[in-house]
């Protein structure tokens, strides 16, 4: 991550993709609204993608810490339970990350 030009290129590419996605409905709104498959994907993809991101990032964290893979599972469970009952994203993230960092470094 030391090549600034590479990082800048990635930032510009990500900016273009993100803007294109946000602008697409304003350019092709009629078409998108009429297409049933687009509707289906819109209902299906958010939960599917979040599940995949959660699973793959958890596996990534586990591979950094191969001795105690249950730590990551425990912390993810803590975040899920706190979020389910509190609906406070910041609280869940801070509690989960705090508990994980403590266990990882001093546990």
């Amino acid at each position, binding site marked *: *991550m*030391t090549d*600034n030009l*590479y*990082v800048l*290129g*990635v*930032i*510009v*590419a*990500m*900016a*273009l*993709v*993100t*803007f294109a*996605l*946000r*602008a*697409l*409905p*304003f350019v092709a*709104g009629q078409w*998108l609204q009429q297409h*049933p*498959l687009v509707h*289906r*994907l*819109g209902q*299906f*993809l*958010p*939960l*599917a*993608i*979040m*599940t*995949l*991101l959660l*699973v793959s*990032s958890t596996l*990534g*964290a586990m591979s950094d*810490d191969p001795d105690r893979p249950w730590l990551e599972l425990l*912390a*993810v469970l803590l*975040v*899920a339970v706190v*979020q*389910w009952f509190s609906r406070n*994203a*910041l609280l*869940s*993230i801070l509690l*989960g*990350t705090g508990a*994980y*960092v403590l266990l*990882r*470094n001093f546990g």
Partner: protein
Amino acid sequence: MLPDSPAKHTSALTLTAPVAMGYIPLGTVFGFLFVQAGGEWWLAICASLLVYAGAAQYMMIPLLAAGMSTASIALATLIINSRHVFYGLSLLNRLPASRWQRCYVIFGLTDETYSLITTLAPGSNARNMLLVTLFNQGWWVLGTALGALIGAQAKVALLGLDFALVALFCVLTVEQWRVRKSAAPLWIALLAFAIAYPLSARHAMVISIALSVLAVVFLELLRKRSDGVQP
């Protein structure tokens, strides 16, 4: 909304206060992790100014650190942010008329800005919409700058701070689960991942998303066919 709705009387700044409570700390975590991963502090701020998408910006840190190609990171961004396509659909006729204001509001259409804009009264002026978008991005950039500066000062040797990312995805999954119409996306995604991971651990994410999309297309075709059979 009723003409005397409180949203009309509340200033844009107060309206964005709850977003500030979330964006400043989350932006700080992003800036901090970005710098700790070896990025320059001003590039972290650039990312928050130009990309301005929470989950995608968190994701970019490990991908940049791994030196993934620009095209793969762009594809990953496309996948993570694809849900944003569906936000615009409900705002089609409600954005400011001025071209530049319109462009900026579309650019700044994050999850939180979207939900604030939908609570503004339909007759609410374009200036309010623009200010809400502007303040929200301001909080995010402010947080990023804070985190990047802290991260550049102190090279903390705490393991596992990047778990914040996993926690963020966990929160988003819980919220998607809460509003689910069916549990199928979760099970299909898990099944797809179980197939994709042994094939290639590196590309498991992209493969499983492709498999999930194929599953939706297949189910849609089945549904159409069974609809067609009925009289």
